[in-house]
């Protein structure tokens, strides 16, 4: 019989957080006699001064090493030290080592904290947490070993870390970031190769960094670097930081077990083709399905659309194995994905490729970076620049769509992302538009710029019919018609939440413009042509304000007024990235009996290289007609034009806040 006791049954994560943070679990502390290594002592003696008060920590040392053996084995090492300057800086007293379980081992990981008193605390095996890196995936071999010393750290302390891993992956390319979100005193990357091998590096976001070469050891180094800060509507930090990407190559004619080297994009295309091509298996079931979805006599675009829709409906589930051996680029067999009806991005793209094969429509996988169109750099041929997979479908001259690109050898290619279940064939998610992506087509593969759809393809058209009573009460009907990425946004709100939650979103949107509004009708329609319609009816008891029963004031932009500025800072360090979009709205307001228009907002007309805006009111036959239009082009606006961008949007905000004044007759 088991012992009688009250048992702790609740979430185990608490225990781990407690252990990780060294918090209230009353663990004994390592002896104060633990000593820091000489390199760390030396780093800790680096004087720190003259930093802005916003700086929370300074990286004193950031040294990475890579030693490659003849047999392809790679030993990676790292030494880092950071001085904590503020309470927020305590979050820098942590380290993480990412590794792939199939090919890589963390051989050694330790850390030290030198407190301002000089006391040293050492962190070893007992304090290392090994964590799954992608816990949303059903399975993923990527893991991270971490040491977190935040709760032990304090301003003035120096946190140092040293780790080594052993890697047998197929990759022969390594990026190194010299800059981080903290200032860096010294950052260095050292690559040691077998005799006769060579290394090449490309530099990003910095003048070319030449290595110091000693025998077969290459050292790249930068000193005294400012922090990199991300800004709203700006590039991600990784696209801004000074960095290099190192590729190494075995000696000519050497027999080596080292992984695949890439001299150019053709090499990358060939390698990815080797990995993916055998996975596009077309069995009878899959072929039958493809043919049943797509009648032979239908127009080409309709046939592709039918297959695209089906694959979009395949549930996104990621199972990542063999990552260190290129598994992250090899889709599961298309027949398997079809029978299970789930897969990740490359599985879905590959399934579509196989189904199109059944229709005798050639297609190619496309690897892309999802999330930042400025991320991929042409000068570094490497599969490691990508994080996503989509598809390019060869189309005839008769097929028309905004997302067709011309490949010099493969001809017209329709670009499509079957993982994004809300963006139909003929459109492309905005975070992929304009990005460089690799068409995976063996010898014919090439890096290409993805299409950018024009603002008019991503348009919102709104028609509002409202009636104002002499009490200030309002009743209204709004019809919205959206296209392209505007329709995707509308569709996403509807599709991915329960109906009741969708209605709440609409209610919030209406009540933001009309306080206390009662929403009586919410009727969304997701159209088969990729557009989206929304009809809303509402009423509100006090939209317009009566002043001494003499004047009535209200804002003619009833809903979706721009009442906040997204670029709030007065100055800027990095370019502003604008997505292609457009809207137009006509609001017809039936004026209350017994009132005349006393004052209307001034008409606004703005034009800039990146867009245009206009807003104007007119009175016609008892109606106030308010029209506004905006067009924004896809653009990366340089920092020196920041004031103009900010002013453009601030003027729109002001225009949409301006009221109409009615006076009693």
């Amino acid at each position: 019989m088991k012992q009688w006791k009250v048992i702790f049954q609740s979430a185990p994560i608490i225990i781990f957080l407690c252990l990780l943070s060294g918090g209230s679990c009353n663990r004994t502390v390592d002896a104060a006699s633990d000593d820091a290594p000489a390199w760390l002592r030396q780093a800790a003696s680096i004087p720190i001064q003259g930093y802005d008060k916003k700086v929370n920590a300074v990286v004193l040392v950031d040294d990475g090493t890579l030693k490659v053996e003849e047999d392809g084995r790679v030993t990676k090492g790292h030494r880092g030290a950071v001085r904590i300057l503020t309470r927020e800086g305590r979050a820098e007293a942590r380290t993480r080592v990412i590794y792939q379980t199939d090919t890589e081992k963390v051989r050694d990981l330790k850390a030290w904290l030198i407190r301002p008193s000089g006391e040293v605390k050492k962190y070893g095996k007992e304090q290392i947490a090994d964590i799954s890196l992608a816990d949303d995936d059903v399975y993923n071999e990527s893991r991270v070993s971490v040491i977190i010393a935040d709760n032990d750290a304090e301003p003035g302390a120096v946190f140092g870390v040293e780790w080594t891993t052993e890697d047998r992956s197929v990759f022969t390319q390594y990026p190194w970031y010299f800059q981080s979100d903290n200032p860096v005193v010294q950052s260095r990357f050292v690559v040691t190769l077998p005799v006769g091998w060579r290394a090449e590096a490309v530099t990003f976001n910095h003048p070319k960094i030449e290595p110091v070469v000693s025998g077969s050891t290459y050292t790249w180094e930068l000193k005294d670097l400012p922090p990199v800060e991300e800004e709203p509507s700006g590039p991600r930090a990784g696209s801004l930081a000074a960095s290099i990407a190192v590729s190494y190559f075995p000696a000519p004619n050497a027999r080596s077990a080292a992984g695949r080297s890439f001299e150019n994009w053709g090499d990358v295309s060939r390698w990815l083709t080797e990995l993916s091509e055998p996975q596009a298996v077309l069995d009878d079931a899959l072929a039958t399905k493809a043919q049943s979805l797509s009648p032979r006599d239908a127009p080409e675009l309709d046939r592709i659309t039918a297959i695209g829709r089906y694959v979009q409906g395949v549930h996104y589930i990621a199972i990542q194995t063999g990552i260190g051996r290129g598994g992250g680029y090899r889709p599961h067999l298309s027949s398997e994905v079809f029978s299970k009806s789930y897969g990740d991005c490359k599985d879905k793209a590959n399934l579509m490729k196989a189904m199109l094969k059944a229709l005798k429509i050639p297609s190619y996988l496309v690897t892309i970076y999802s999330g930042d169109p400025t991320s991929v750099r042409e000068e570094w041929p490497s599969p490691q620049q990508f994080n996503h997979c989509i598809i390019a479908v060869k189309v005839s001259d008769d097929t028309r769509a905004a997302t067709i690109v011309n490949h010099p050898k493969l001809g017209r290619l329709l670009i499509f992302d079957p993982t994004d279940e809300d963006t139909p064939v003929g459109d492309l998610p905005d975070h992929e538009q304009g990005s460089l992506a690799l068409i995976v087509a063996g010898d014919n593969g090439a890096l290409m710029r993805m299409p950018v759809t024009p603002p008019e393809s991503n348009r919102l058209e709104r028609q509002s019919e409202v009636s104002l009573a002499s009490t200030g009460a309002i009743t209204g009907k709004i019809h919205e018609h959206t296209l392209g990425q505007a329709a995707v946004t509308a569709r996403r709100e509807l599709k991915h939440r329960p109906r009741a939650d969708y209605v709440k979103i609409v209610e919030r949107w209406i009540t933001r413009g009309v306080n206390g509004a009662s929403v009586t009708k919410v009727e969304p329609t997701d159209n088969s042509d990729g557009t989206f319609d929304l009809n809303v009816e509402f009423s509100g008891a006090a939209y317009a304000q009566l002043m001494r029963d003499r004047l009535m004031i209200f804002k003619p932009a009833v809903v979706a007024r721009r009442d906040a500025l997204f670029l709030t800072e007065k100055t800027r360090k990095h370019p502003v990235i604008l997505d292609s979009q457009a809207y137009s709205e006509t609001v017809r307001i039936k004026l209350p009996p017994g009132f005349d228009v006393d004052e209307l907002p001034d008409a606004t007309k703005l034009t800039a290289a990146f867009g245009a805006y206009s807003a104007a009111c007119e009175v016609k036959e008892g109606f106030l007609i308010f029209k506004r239009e905006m067009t924004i082009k896809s653009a990366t606006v340089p920092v020196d034009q920041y004031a103009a961008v900010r002013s453009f949007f601030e003027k729109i905000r002001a225009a949409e806040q301006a009221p109409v004044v009615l006076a009693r007759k």
Partner: protein
Amino acid sequence: MSPKPVRSLLLVLLLCAPLCLAVRAADDWRPVDPAHLAMKTPVVEKDADAEVIFWDVKIDDASEDLIFTNYVRIKIFTARGVETQSKVDLEYFGSHRIKDIAGRTIKPDGSIVELKKDAVFDRTLVKISGIKVKVKSFAMPAVEPGGLIEYRWKEVRGGVSANNVRLQFQRDIPVQLVKYWLKPMSGSPAGMNVQTFHGDVPRFVKDKDGFYSTSMTNMPAFHLEPRMPPEDNERTWALVYYSVEKYSDPNKFWSDFGKRIFESSKQLTKVNDDIKKAAAAAIGDASTAEAKLERLYEFCKTKVKNSNSPEAGLTAADRAKLKKNESPADTLKRGIGTGDDITMLFAALAAAAGFETRICLMADRSDIFFDRNIANPYFLNTTDAAVKVGNQWRFFDPGSLYLPFGLLRWQEEGVLALVPDSKESAFVPTPVSSAKTSMQKRTAHLKLSEDGTIEGEVRVEFTGHFAIEKKNDNDDDSATEREKNLTEEIKQHMSTAEVSQIKFENVTDPFKPFAYSYHLKTPGYAQRTGKRLFLQPGFFQYGNAAQFPTSNRVHPIYFKYPWSEEDSVTIDLPAGYALDNADAPQPFMAGEISKYEMKISVAEGRRLMINRSFFFGGNGTLLFPNTSYTPLKNLFDTLHERDNHTITLKQAASAQQ
């Protein structure tokens, strides 16, 4: 095999009849009811994307381990149902195990796709010091709208009992039938009890093989809403627990329990000579009971360092090195202690000063609303000092950071405190603070320019629970971080605001109000037309969103504590403009619960003076049934409307061009 479209119920029945037999013969899956495959709409909630057909849990506490045998069948109605229900993660840790996972998908045409063994992945989420949190993950194959998925698994919790296990009867999707079987531990002197919460869960009745069972049908999905009571207070669930003695009268239980607490807490508040001396010194010349207790409270707050406070400047390592205080005398001698140590010291000092004191237990109302009719101390999880003043028990918690004298944490206000006694323990209600106690007092002296820019000095002061929350939010931040956070907060309401000269006051002071002041410049605050400027006098409410924007409500509405707001704003008007209209918005009140008033006056012809006051939660009214949602929403919509009230300035005729 290509799936065939289902054309009629008859066809479904024809297809499924042999299937049911085959399934039963092939495995111990329960037969599939063809009606479930044919279902086009949910039974429990009309818009559900998926619905649990049945959810069975057998809990066997009779063996060495505690074993949960789970089996769930789910009908999928929409693509969103596919998205939310296809992936399954079964988390376990320590000596717990998950085993015997099996699953299958029954497609709309009745064909079956089994979950393959190799499609179940065992993952370690976190591993540290030999302890692992693991998860068994799988994705159900070939799931599509119209189909059914079902899976089962066993969870084995090594060497533990079912004591304090919670049984859930609601999920994030509706459930047609949920059934629990329970087999109690055998040979234990303790008997198993099941206490249900917030639903008419039928009593467990004797079933086969030593199990007891209960079930519920048509359970709606459970979703959180803003400003709702604690989750455990709303969802239907049951607590399993063992007790050696069986009490039919809860009063008798609490009386006996109170005696045990009384005895065990004696040592914790033991008085010795040092305590007596310290009490006498701290009290000094105070003569009233109130003044004496206040001095003792202040002593505990100021003379003993709270090791949990950032002010103590301790790292985790420092805290770990601290010796445990075994008695109030230890805490006094060392001058440092945990929050509980400090509260015990306060009780001992009060006792030394001649007060009758107790260590009392109470429930945290942010977890659940305590019911004394449940004879189980499970929910009494916080301790305070109770001191008898006259005939009344007063409650003190000096160990909580930033809690001023006379105030309890909001979680402990308006709850029942068990005041233990050797003879007659008693439940005593704790007071709820008044709306005046927790106040935001805001002042601004501003100047409006012709172009609509407003600029001036602003000061905001927080007292009571507001102050405690603000201090807790800010105490661990550097000055730079505090400034950054405040600036962001202001810009959320006034995106064009430029904030400078920020000063914070009393961030870690346990007694004084938390306050900050700053200089503000906001272009475009007022809107300008050809001859007028439009100005919102509710300066501190500028850009606020409505409190309750949605029309439907499922759960009751719940506020943490009563509060009040007092605003005093002056705005100097631009030259060349005169007040066209300075109507103040109409005041309103809701009985003793709430009152709002904004007064607008003009001084020296050019200075607008705005005084706004608002309070909510009068008489400690903080909980409203969902049937009161509409009037409550109307009250806050009215507040929002009045706060957005606009006044007009007109350009003087001579200034108009």
